[in-house]
C-alpha cells in the first residue's frame, strides 16, 4: 500500500517540480525588459570601455608630439612573448656627446598576451593601455605597429 501512495506522490512531486521550472522561464518570457543582449554594432557610439580596459599597448603622446620613452629596452626584456622590439638610434648632441634615443618602438599586437608587464615595469611610464578593441584586420602585417609617432621626440624632463 505504501508503494501505491508513493507512486502518486512521485507523480505529484514530479509535476510540481516541472511547473516550478516552467514558472521561471515563463516569468522571463513575459518580462522582456529583463533582456540583457547588447546590440553591438549599433551601440558603438555609446559603448564606452572601462578606463583600465586592456585593448592594446599604446604610447601616449603630448600635444607637441612628445613621448616619454627613453628606449631603455626594459619592456622588451620583460615581455614574455617577444612582442616588443626596440630599434635604437644615436644622435649627436650639441655638446658633442652621442645620445641614445628611440628610433622605432615596434609592437606586435598579434603576439601580445596582454599581461601588462611592459607597462608595469616601464621606469618612465611611457606605455599605457589603449581602449581600442576592434583589432580585426585582413592582413596580419597590419597588427605590427610602431608606437612612437613619426617625428616625435622625447619629453624634455625625462631626457634630463
Amino acid at each position, binding site marked *: 500500500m505504501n508503494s501505491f501512495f508513493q507512486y502518486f506522490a512521485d*507523480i505529484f512531486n514530479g509535476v510540481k517540480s*516541472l511547473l516550478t*521550472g*516552467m514558472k*521561471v*522561464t*515563463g516569468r*522571463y*518570457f513575459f518580462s*522582456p525588459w*529583463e*533582456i*540583457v*543582449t547588447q*546590440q553591438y554594432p549599433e551601440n558603438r557610439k555609446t559603448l564606452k570601455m572601462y578606463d583600465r580596459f586592456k585593448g592594446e599597448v599604446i604610447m601616449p603622446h603630448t600635444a607637441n608630439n612628445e613621448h616619454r620613452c627613453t628606449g631603455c629596452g626594459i619592456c622588451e626584456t620583460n615581455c614574455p612573448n617577444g612582442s616588443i622590439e626596440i630599434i635604437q638610434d644615436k644622435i649627436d648632441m650639441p655638446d658633442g656627446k652621442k645620445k641614445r634615443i628611440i628610433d622605432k618602438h615596434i609592437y606586435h599586437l598579434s603576439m601580445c598576451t596582454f599581461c601588462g608587464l611592459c607597462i608595469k615595469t616601464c621606469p618612465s611610464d611611457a606605455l599605457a593601455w589603449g581602449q581600442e578593441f576592434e583589432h580585426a584586420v585582413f592582413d596580419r602585417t597590419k597588427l605590427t605597429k610602431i608606437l612612437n609617432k613619426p617625428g616625435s621626440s622625447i619629453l624634455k624632463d625625462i631626457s634630463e
Partner: protein
Amino acid sequence: MAFSIYDFTSFNQSIDKLLYDSLPPFWALIIEMTIIGVVFLLFYAVVGLFLVYAERKVCAFMQNRVGPNRVGPYGIFQTIADFIKLLMKELIYIKNADKLLFNLAPFIVIIASFMAISAVPFAKGLHAIDFDIGILYVIAVSSLGVVGILLAGWSSNNKYSLIGAMRSGAQIVSYELSVGLSLVTIIILAGTMQFSAIVEGQANGWFIFKGHIPAFIAFVVFLIASTAETNRGPFDLAEAESELTAGFHTEYSGIKFAFFFLAEYMNMFLVASIAATVFLGGWMPFHVSGWGGFNAVMDFIPPLIWYFGKTAFIIFLMMWFKWTFPRLRIDQLLTLEWKYLLPINLVNILVMAFMVLMGWHF
C-alpha cells in the same frame, strides 16, 4: 461565389461546381487535386517558416535574449534567409552510405506529415478530406514517419545516427500507444472518430470542459506523449545534441536536412492542431451553454482565428516544455511511458467510459 469567413462550405462547393461545369470530370478532379496540393505546399512553407521564427523568438525571450533581429524588422526574414542558405548548401554524399535509402529517408518523413495534415479541419468546411475514421487515419499515417527516421539513421553509416535512430524507434513505437489511447478517451466521449463531427460536438462546450477530469488528464497525457512522438525536447533523445551530436540527421546537409527540420516543425503543428481540435474544440468558438449573448460575441470571431489561436497556444506550451526541461534518459523515457502514462491512460479510459454511461459529463 459565396464567400464567408465563418463557413467555407459554400465557397468550396462553388469552386467545385465551377470546375465541374466548365471541364470534363476527369480534368476537373485533377485540377482540384492540384489546387489542394499546391495550397498545402504553400501552407507548409508558410507555417514552417513561421514556426521556426516563432521558436527562435520564444526561446530567446525565455533566455533573456532578443533572438533574430538582423534580417528585416524584428528579424522576420531570418528564416527565409536561413532557408535560402540551406537550399544553396552543398549536399554531402557519404562514402559507404546506402545512397538510395539515404536520399529516400527525408521524403518519407515529410510525406508522412503531409498525409496526416490532410485530415485536419481548419474551419467549417475547410478540410481536404473528412474521413469517418479521421483520428484513426491520422494515427495510422503519422506512424509512418518513424520509418524515415530509422532509415536515415541506418543508411548514413554513422554510429551516432544509428543510436539516434534506435532511440527514436523505441520512443515513437511506445509513445504512439499513449497518443492513441488518450484520443480514444475523447472518442468515447464524442462517440465518433470523424473530425468534423468531433468539432460539431463541441458546439456547446469544448471536450476538455465537457469531460472535465478524465478529459483533462487525457489532454495532459496527449501533450506529453505527442511531444515525445514529435521528437521534441525534453524527449529529443533521437537528436540529443550533447550526446549524439545530432542523432539521426548528423550526416544530412542542405535541403535534405531542411526536410527533416521542416518535418519536425510540421509534426509539431500537426499534433498541436489535433490537440486543439479534439480537446479544445478546433475552430469552434468558446461557448457556454445558456449564455446566448456571450456565445453570439464569441461566434463573431472567425473560426480560422479560433483554430490558429488554439494551435498556437499548444505550440507555445510545447516550446515552453522544450526550453525549460532537461532531457530524459532513454530508460527513463520508457519508464515514463510504461509505468506512468499507459496505466493512467487505461484507468482514464475506464473512468471516461463509466462517466459517459452514467451521463456525468456536461
